[in-house]
């Protein structure tokens, strides 16, 4: 399933200028892996830990979480509380 992932503008130089990248994925894990393959410059960022927001809900785990068609997906920095 084609999934649109919103990155942050600071990553544009690693994705040939794209801030929204389309990959084939059914789960969060597949999406992250596909992003790293499509744009290898993203791999260290993803490996360093990111949060994924699906329809506004922030997840820090959940590689196996399924992505529903049309879900809004944002990649964000890994959040930390105090």
């Amino acid at each position: 399933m084609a999934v649109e992932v919103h990155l942050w503008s600071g990553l544009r130089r690693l994705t040939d200028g794209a801030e929204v990248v389309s990959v084939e994925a059914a789960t969060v894990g597949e999406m992250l892996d596909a992003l790293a393959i499509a744009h290898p410059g993203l791999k260290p960022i993803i490996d360093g830990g990111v949060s994924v927001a699906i329809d506004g809900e922030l997840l820090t785990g959940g590689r196996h979480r399924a992505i529903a068609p049309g879900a809004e997906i944002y990649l964000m920095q890994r959040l930390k509380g105090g």
Partner: protein
Amino acid sequence: MPKDEFQKYRLVGTRPNRPDGLDKVTGRARYGADISAPGMLWGAVVRSPHAHAKIVKIDASKALALAGVKAVITRADFPDGLTGEPWNLQENTIAGERALYDGHAVAAVAATSRLLAEEAARLVEVTYEVLPHVTEVDEAIKPDAPVIRAGAADASVPEGMPPNVVRYMEFGHGDVEAGFAEADIVREGHYLTEATHQGYIEPHACLGQMGEDGKGEMWVTTQGQWYIRKMCADVLGMEVSQLRVTPSEIGGGFGGKTTIFMEPLSLALSKKAGGKPVKIVMSRSEVLRATGPTASASMDVKIGMKKDGTITAATANFRMQGGAFPGAPVDMALYCAFAAYKLPAVHHVGYDVLANRPRAAAYRAPGSPNGAFAVESLVDQMCLELGLDPIEVRLKNAVREGDKSSYGPKFGSIGLIETLEATKDHPNLQAPLGPNQGRGVAAGYWFNHGGETSVSMAISEDGTAQVSVGTPDVGGGRASIALMVAETLGIRYEDVRVNVVETGALGVNEPTHGSRATFASGKAAVEATRQAIGELCKRAAADWGIDPEAVEWVDGAAQPAGPNAGKFPPMSLAEIAGKMGSTGGPISGHHESVPEGVGASFGVHVVDVEVDPETGRTTILRYLVVQDAGTAIHPAYVEGQYQGGAVQGIGWALNEEYVYGKDGRLQNPIFLDYRVPVASDLPMIDTVIVEVPNPGHPYGVRGVGETGITPPLPAIANAIHRATGQRLRHLPMTPAKVLAAIKANGG
């Protein structure tokens, strides 16, 4: 007993006594420094007196010659070859080639008494070659600043950045230039916040023991025993399961106790001293110099607003230093900065910069108070200029469920509108203000968090219940879990005992941080209880000879689900439990997950101040916290979180700061000079708990611990502006700074 205004359930929303209250008011509760072990040694740490220096030589011979000294360790006693975050932790735990901040640990000793250990530490001779240092963020970001660590920038940093920039962020949406063109006024501001400390009254303390077989035990005051375990294992190069970490009661953390400082030293000393337990208790000055204060920030914000208060565009550029390691929360500061506003166009840029200061740790909504200070100050200034009411302007631009957030994704269920409306209606806003008095308003935001959770519960033979959670109780946690489990089971609150357990007893749990304990441990405890209820129903069904699907759990008992299931009187929990040994064995439930459905929360604060025009001293006259809790499980402890967060914010706004001298040394590492709020500084703190239940939690919980510290910094700056006509943009707003501003402007 009259129903509490929050009591929508039988128990959830009431205010029973907390189960650990007796131990805490009698002095029986045991914190980090409160245990001893046979044959115990005391540890003391040798710390760098220089902000930046090469470590040329460490000579421990005089220390070792002292009778009673059993071990001395340096970095050489730790494994090589770590990378990434484990390397950062190891380097901060004990210096390698260079001391990176005043107070950086360079060696440690173990001896038979505390006084002897301190004497031995003084006898360790360290030869330093002092290097140039930099402590201020705007100096550290310069291309020619002393370099803390060459090549430390991660993949996010583009080419050509100054050498101390280790992380870089840029994000936003819409056309900012077009937005500014549409505005009636466009204003900018430069804001500075100094580093502060979480200020927990209990210093870090641990008792560690490690034998030559590589097995270790540790008693430690911590927000997260699994984090401590993993971090110590990483730093020491040992297997994680071979280390068992037991959390003591914790005397405050607020984020500062989610990481390690001297804990690996106690284990390494123990191993070197032949496996004897080693106790290390930090002094207050060690805590302030060498644990994890906040970052300091230099921030530029620009906002475009129409005459009617609509915000058309905004930009933010934040520089934050988090000490000599990456991790200043510039990302979260930026994410939260404009979170309350529906913005058609916004652009954020952030830099995480290294400096010769201790490694920053989390402090209650890390980054959010800083960003709020900048943005909410500027919004208020613009409200004043346009003659608009600050609450109305927030309502006009407020985000709602489904709106696109300033940080990108759309919002789920949130309660900002409800929180603003509740603020508007509050009587505090009608209190008359006299000369030199002013009222400030500000909003704040925090995401809250889910995170790895593992919880078990079990039914005891007499029908009471026990729950094992992994999240230390920082103030009301056990009570909240007990309320939710008792509610779910249908038994008395007093019949549920909640235990905070050590790492050997459950799967991995994230710490009590991110306002997650009541949400995540609570949700898991409810799921675990439901699992146990399923088993309880099965036992009753077996007794009755009916299908388990035909049994339901009501008011603490199993009963047939409808007249067709059979005519049996309800079987109570106590009855089923009493014979469980002969009907199939123990009855328990277990749940682990990374829970979804986290609910974010907004808060709005209103503060009235009076500023003495002769001394610049600010007195807080009235303080109101209005915050969305989702559902208040135990309203008194929710109020406590609101009040505590607000008062930490008051301290940060008016008094608290890390003062570094020209020599790069911390000038104020004691409570006399690092001035936190005391009882005589404050009035009562009024609170309003707004409840917009979070659909992601069985009882509607949103985290409450952190949002409370996000509005006070700008709320107080806004109040001071309205009281004096002076806009202060550099925290803390000490009497000297306020007076200087008044005088500089002809006051």
